[in-house]
């Protein structure tokens, strides 16, 4: 428990850890209880605060696919490069996306080779660049779950309102519910309960998760990101399991409601529609897991405006990202972890962003072990 002294309320943390251990000991099963945190933000928090080390060995945290940068397949990066290298294009995106490897290198490498690729903090900055460069085509490489989906949508609505003709989005937004459903439907999975994503849930609310409890009979607790939040949420999942309940509970009620954020949901509804399927790195194709722009917003869709090769490229053979994403392997059990694959030279996407399980493991857990 090396970090617990630094917590805001260490008595509370110690009590939670005690209660978690007490419940864990009461379970009579020959394998650990597996709890999956769906959100990359939680993965990050779990590693940086060393939460895993505080838990009794009967509890295993499985780091889910909730890092939107990590799950982008190589083909989408190659498509993005194809757009970026067309004459007159300025490609803009978040810093995290710059280092994701495609089959012909990353955006960062393409930038070094002369492509006009600019890192932005916000999609609205991409629109600002479009306003300042009317003779260029400015493309925003948009990605993320429902947390960032409204920001892209609102930016497109602003571009529409201001009649900005040289702005479009290469849309790689993905949606959380079909993703969780795909995980629940995979045959080799034995997850006992879920920590629900905090910031995604600010937008969509807790109602969309009801099927997890009702249909799959698994507990889900929507959790905040501070260490105490995560510990308390783990405790809430365990309590449900101990009492034989399967419910959607909300630990993060200070910002998450049942119905979500109405303004954000309106913007999402107006701009996007579901794609029939979307390809994930390591997980293959998941039905209805991605979104694209509706017909009315087609002119802001880079896939309609540019010739996009739409390439499909298998992950490198050595990568075991899929097994790590599904919780079948721990990051350090991948054959290339820490050798061919490091944060400086990522082979798989889970090594790229600080929210990726492998990068987090490399930075925090591997050192502590």
């Amino acid at each position: 428990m090396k970090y617990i002294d630094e917590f805001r309320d260490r008595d509370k943390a110690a009590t939670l850890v005690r209660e978690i251990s007490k419940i864990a000991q009461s379970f009579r099963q020959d394998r650990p209880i597996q709890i999956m945190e769906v959100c990359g933000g939680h993965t990050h928090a779990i590693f940086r605060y060393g939460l895993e080390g505080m838990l009794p060995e009967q509890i295993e945290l499985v780091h889910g696919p909730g890092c939107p940068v990590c799950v982008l397949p190589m083909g989408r990066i190659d498509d993005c490069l194809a757009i970026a290298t067309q004459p007159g294009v300025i490609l803009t995106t978040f810093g995290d996306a710059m280092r994701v490897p495609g089959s012909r290198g990353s955006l960062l490498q393409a930038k070094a080779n002369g492509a006009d690729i600019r890192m932005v903090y916000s999609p609205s900055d991409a629109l600002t660049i479009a306003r300042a460069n009317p003779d260029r085509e400015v493309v925003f490489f948009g990605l993320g779950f429902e947390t960032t989906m409204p920001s892209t949508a609102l930016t497109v609505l602003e571009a529409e309102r201001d009649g900005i003709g040289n702005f479009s989005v290469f849309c790689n937004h993905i949606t959380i519910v079909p993703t969780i459903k795909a995980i629940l439907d995979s045959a080799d999975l034995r997850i006992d309960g879920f920590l629900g994503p905090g910031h995604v849930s600010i937008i969509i609310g807790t109602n969309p998760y009801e099927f997890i409890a009702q249909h799959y009979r698994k507990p889900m607790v929507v959790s905040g990101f501070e260490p105490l939040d995560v510990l308390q949420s783990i405790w809430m999942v365990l309590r449900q399991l101990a009492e034989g309940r399967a419910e959607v509970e909300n630990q993060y009620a200070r910002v998450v409601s049942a119905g979500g954020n109405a303004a954000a949901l309106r913007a999402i509804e107006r701009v996007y529609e579901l794609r029939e399927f979307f390809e994930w790195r390591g997980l293959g194709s998941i039905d209805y897991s991605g979104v694209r722009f509706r017909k009315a917003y087609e002119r802001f869709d880079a896939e309609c405006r540019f010739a996009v090769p739409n390439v499909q490229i298998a992950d490198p053979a050595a990568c075991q990202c899929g097994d790590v994403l599904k919780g079948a392997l721990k990051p350090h059990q991948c054959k290339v972890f820490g050798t061919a694959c490091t944060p400086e030279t990522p082979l798989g996407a889970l090594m790229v962003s600080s929210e990726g399980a492998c990068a987090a493991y490399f930075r925090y857990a591997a050192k502590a072990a």
Partner: protein
Amino acid sequence: MCLGIPAQIVRIDDAERMLATAEVGGVRRQVNIMCIVDEQHAPEACVGDWVLLHVGFALSRIDAAEAAETLRMLGELGEVQAELDAMGQSR
């Protein structure tokens, strides 16, 4: 990009466009407040609000004590600076 950071709304720039200036750690930038405005909470009422800021959009109001605690924790881990650098870079 998904972590976000608490910031305080210090000024309304354009109520009709839902644009305001937010400040955190001495860094100011323009943000969109669409998601924290509703019939009970007009744009003008947002000045002084602490919000959870994600890629330039205020996602939710949070209380001042929570904002301070989150900033303290992110600060210890060197993550406030990373976020501030990101906020500054594309302006």
